[in-house]
């Protein structure tokens, strides 16, 4: 995963509440078990007037001239709700999105962001609205978002911050604790034998 330090980009506004992962990447756009080839289907129901022929809807924010090359999406409350499909994050990342600023995120989506180097930033609704089409700079280490002469602080869990800042792979990191895990399991197997199952034949 690519480490994150600073992200500078115009903020493209999709300021609706409860944007769900079915809209971010519809099930019908997920045609293989891989994690690539998804950017084209990103927001397909809104981005195209006809999803089959891929005719673009000029009114949709990501189709605006100012959105070309954007790395930052601005969204409403509870962004990424619904299905757990990580394809939503893979599609956003493949499209070039590196950060999303919203008043709140759905929990599974937020977790998926952190495992794929996409930075979810939570700021109050009125602040998010004010960032629309502005050049925005996000600095992870001091946890700040700036636009023009204004600057806001955002909260992020220390674990999530480290993972993103250092581009860490969670599985590699956890495997370093494998001895402790195996010891715990050995003890647990004695105290909760019912929680363990026989190997399938």
């Amino acid at each position: 995963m690519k480490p994150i330090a600073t992200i500078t980009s115009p903020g493209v506004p999709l300021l609706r509440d409860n944007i769900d992962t079915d809209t971010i990447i519809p099930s019908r756009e997920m045609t293989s078990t891989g994690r690539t080839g998804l950017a084209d289907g990103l927001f397909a129901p809104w981005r195209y007037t006809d999803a089959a022929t891929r005719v673009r809807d000029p009114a949709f924010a990501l189709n605006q001239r100012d959105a070309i090359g954007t790395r930052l999406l601005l969204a409403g409350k509870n962004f990424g709700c619904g299905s757990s499909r990580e394809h939503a994050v893979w599609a956003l990342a493949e499209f070039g999105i590196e950060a999303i600023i919203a008043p709140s995120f759905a929990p599974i989506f937020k977790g998926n962001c952190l495992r794929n180097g996409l930075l979810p930033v939570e700021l109050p609704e009125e602040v998010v609205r004010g960032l629309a089409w502005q050049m925005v700079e996000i600095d992870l280490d001091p946890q700040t978002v700036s636009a023009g002469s204004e600057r806001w602080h955002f909260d992020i869990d220390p674990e999530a911050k480290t993972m993103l800042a250092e581009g860490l792979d969670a599985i590699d990191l956890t495997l370093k604790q494998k001895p402790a895990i195996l010891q715990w399991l050995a003890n647990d197997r004695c105290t909760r034998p019912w929680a363990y199952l026989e190997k399938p034949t």
Partner: protein
Amino acid sequence: MGQTLFDKIWNAHRIADTAGGAHLIAIDRVFLHERTGAAALRRMAETGRKVLDRARVFAVMDHIVDTRPGRGDGTLMPGGEGFITETRAATHAAGITLFDVNDRDQGIIHVISPEQGIVLPGLTLVAPDSHTCTQGAFGALAWGIGSSEAEHAMVTGTLRMERPRTMRVTFSGALSPGVTPKDMALALIAAHGAGGGAGHAVEFAGEAVRALDMEGRMTLCNMATEFSAMTGIIAPDAKTFGYLAGRPHAPEAFDDPYWSALHSDEDAVFDHDITINAGTIAPMVSWGTSPEHTIPVTGTVPQGPERAHDYIGLDAGAPLAGTPLDAAFIGSCTNSRISDLRRAAALLKGRRIAPGIRKALVVPGSLAVKRQAEAEGLDKVFEAAGFEWRMSGCSLCFYAGGEGFPDGSRVISSTNRNFEGRQGPGIRTHIASPETVAASAIAGVIADPRTVARAGEPA
């Protein structure tokens, strides 16, 4: 200070803390399906990582699998067969148990896990599926994750988690006749928003919850994810242990003192408390494009986001009941169990769906549910009423590019999501209980199930 049910299970699984202050939580069960599990298995094969304890990992074909009678691996979804054949090969290579397309015990992940006794009180269980919270009905800590986290859980036996806050939702009193657990969940989300549970593990409590059977509890917990909660959980009781006794993967006896302590202590403090009088809840139907856009079936459409009104084609002030329908769906991990089918069939017996209903499906949650329903003759009741009787799977809870509803359909559906396009491009979904779906299919319009008397009862 006492502990909540959530605290007890969480603390019993807390192996260590990470440098960043997160908790390394032991995961007792991982369940995969061919839609998102296939991606996790593929990555694991690519990286050469192995499953730590393959006896505790399961997989099932439910999301893409066809539900038409006589099915094989083929599906109308473009590329769908590839998910099925890849998942089969990957689960065999990984050495994990697979409930395959036409296996006797196949079904929707959250229907078969309890049927098989895979979920147990006090366990942690995860799946790359948002509705994994359904299984919290058994007093397990069960939650949905992404494919990467599924791989993490399989390879390490753990997840790195920030501890969520706790919320208790108490349903006091008793439900009125004709009102169901689905209506409880929708009433909660309508009152507190689709993001109302964000950051919280929610315990459902109160007399009206205790009174529910296990299938009703599953329906209630299922919708916790539509509330954006990490999970929903209900303290286990005699009904829970009675349901699980004798199931293939359940222990022979529930005699560990750990189980008898699985309830929130009297003096436990939750970060957030909500109380709802169950007696005030009416049958609920969604009017818009989020589960929070839900009102009593007797209500009128409120002013919501303009886009939701445009998509669904209903103006503020319009009465919801009487809205003409084109299709009806009974199924999904929310409402596809035997009790759901029995209640819907009781309304449909001796009746026909309205001529305007162009497609009506009943999709049992598992092949075991299907066999039970057929033994009771429910399949004949549904077919006589004009419903198609299907094999088990997720089916048209979502549109995957294959089978769909007729263009432009307005669907009354016992599913969990009424998002734009969820059941197909331009398809307008109204989520409701199986009873409301059955009553509405008969009427051809959104209808109050309480006004449709069961066969043999006075109207």
